[in-house]
């Protein structure tokens, strides 16, 4: 008998690229364009996977490992992130730290792969990514710690199970702060506006895109797919906090969360249509704000 918690990771693997498609369609709608088809991300992946890869003689195995580790960690994270109040496939106390560790591992390998090319542009992107993630990671951990403090759970599954409408009524301000911190981390980690502009064509202003300039073919497909999984995972955290209602039917709950993720994608598209990217100097401030939000949430919950 297949249960929702078995289905959730499979669903994620299948639907993650769709989120990118929805974001792009939303942006196209706001710009008054037709825009690429919703499934464009899948077409891209299919196209890239059929291509051959070109490797510079300067690169080593690290360069090839980066994209694969990205996909692997994303897939592993799907196993511990619960969707719709049901426990995830894997749940154990402390898997909060595992999630942060998986994200850090992926980031480490992407950065290492970028540095491995020896390109000045990629080195610059890697340096920015390292700087910003050094600020985003504490914010993520602090907000998860706040949620753990609130619910008393040390596993993601327990933690999101206990975020209910009643918890919102009781500790609204703290939850709102933690959610705000998570949203900022979500935008920053996935290289969205206002931290990074995925559509920029100027290497000097890029953060994430510039690191993967030298990847091609299947490697680039892995990069894109890994990014989509990360978008899904972090989006699931945001939705888990923001949508606390649960019905009696676990399948319906799962469907609701997936719908929520799509709505979140639309929201990201709206944000990207309305805002400009922050100056690079301001980005650390934004991430500090996320950290402050999370820290305040913990202070609020200290009783």
């Amino acid at each position, binding site marked *: 008998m297949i249960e929702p918690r078995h289905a959730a990771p499979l669903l994620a693997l299948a639907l993650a690229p769709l989120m990118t498609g929805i974001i792009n369609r939303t942006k196209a709608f706001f710009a008054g364009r037709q825009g690429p088809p919703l499934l464009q991300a899948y077409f891209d992946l299919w196209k890239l996977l059929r291509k051959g890869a070109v490797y510079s003689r300067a690169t080593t195995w690290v360069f090839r490992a980066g994209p694969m580790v990205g996909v692997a960690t994303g897939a592993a994270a799907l196993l511990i992130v619960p969707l719709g109040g049901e426990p995830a496939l894997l749940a154990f106390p402390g898997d909060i730290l595992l999630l942060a560790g998986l994200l850090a591992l992926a980031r480490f390998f992407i950065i290492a792969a970028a540095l491995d090319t020896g390109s000045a542009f990629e080195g610059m992107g890697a340096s920015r990514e390292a700087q910003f993630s050094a600020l985003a990671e504490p914010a993520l951990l602090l907000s998860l710690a706040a949620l753990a403090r609130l619910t008393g759970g040390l596993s993601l599954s327990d933690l999101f199970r206990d975020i209910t409408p009643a918890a919102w009524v009781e*500790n*609204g301000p703290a939850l709102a702060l933690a959610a705000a911190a998570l949203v900022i981390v979500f935008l920053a980690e996935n290289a969205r506006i206002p931290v990074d502009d995925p559509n920029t064509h100027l290497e000097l202003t890029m953060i994430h895109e510039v690191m993967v300039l030298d990847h091609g073919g299947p490697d680039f497909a892995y990069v894109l797919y890994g990014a989509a999984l990360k978008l899904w995972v972090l989006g699931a955290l945001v939705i888990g906090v923001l949508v606390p209602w649960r019905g009696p039917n676990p399948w319906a709950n799962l469907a609701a969360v997936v719908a929520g993720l799509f709505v979140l994608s639309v929201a990201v598209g709206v944000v990207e249509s309305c805002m400009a990217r922050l100056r690079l100097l301001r980005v650390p*401030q934004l991430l500090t704000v996320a950290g*402050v939000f999370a820290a305040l949430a913990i*202070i609020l919950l200290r009783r």
Partner: protein
Amino acid sequence: MSAWIDGVLVTLILTNLAVLGSSRLNACIRIIALQGVVLGLLPILVGEGAPTIRMTLLTAATMGLKGAVFPWLLLRALRVAGIRREVEPFIGYNWSVLAGLLSLAASVWLGGRLPMPETARSSLVGPVALFMIFCGLFVIVSRRKAITQILGYIIMENGAYAFGVVLLEEIPVLVELGILMDAFVAVFVMGVAIYHIQREFDHVDVDQLDTLKG
């Protein structure tokens, strides 16, 4: 209701950090105005049951003064005296925010050691009041312009006010109005003083007011 009070107090903290981090005087003044409006909500939230005349009066007076009149006075001083719009801090914005966070931690620690009376509607109010006093002092000493010193004074005043409203249910309304009146006159007098200083010196940089020594 306690969650709402906490929400207000958290907003107060955030507005202070925003003041520490923003580089435009205009923005600072608007943030302080927002702080005043949020502060005005406190008397209503603290009271149980339907709002009484006293609460309504206080809320109206606080919101009107701190949310509208103060910002108006300050923005007017800014305009009339032709003050440049940068904050020009001695200590950079990022370091200021960091100092704010450190003082927040310190005030949480200090405030946690105070034996709060049972009448206190939120245990967060002690730390927030201390934090706002630290913050106000920090703004006063770390910024160059005289007008930011007024902002610091308002922040301190707001902190003490929040402390009083949340901690003590029934301060006689006459006393409260006297306190508000004093705050108003203080900001008014300081605004006038800034105007005169600007006319006499052609600047309002307090670090250059250093003729008198010894």
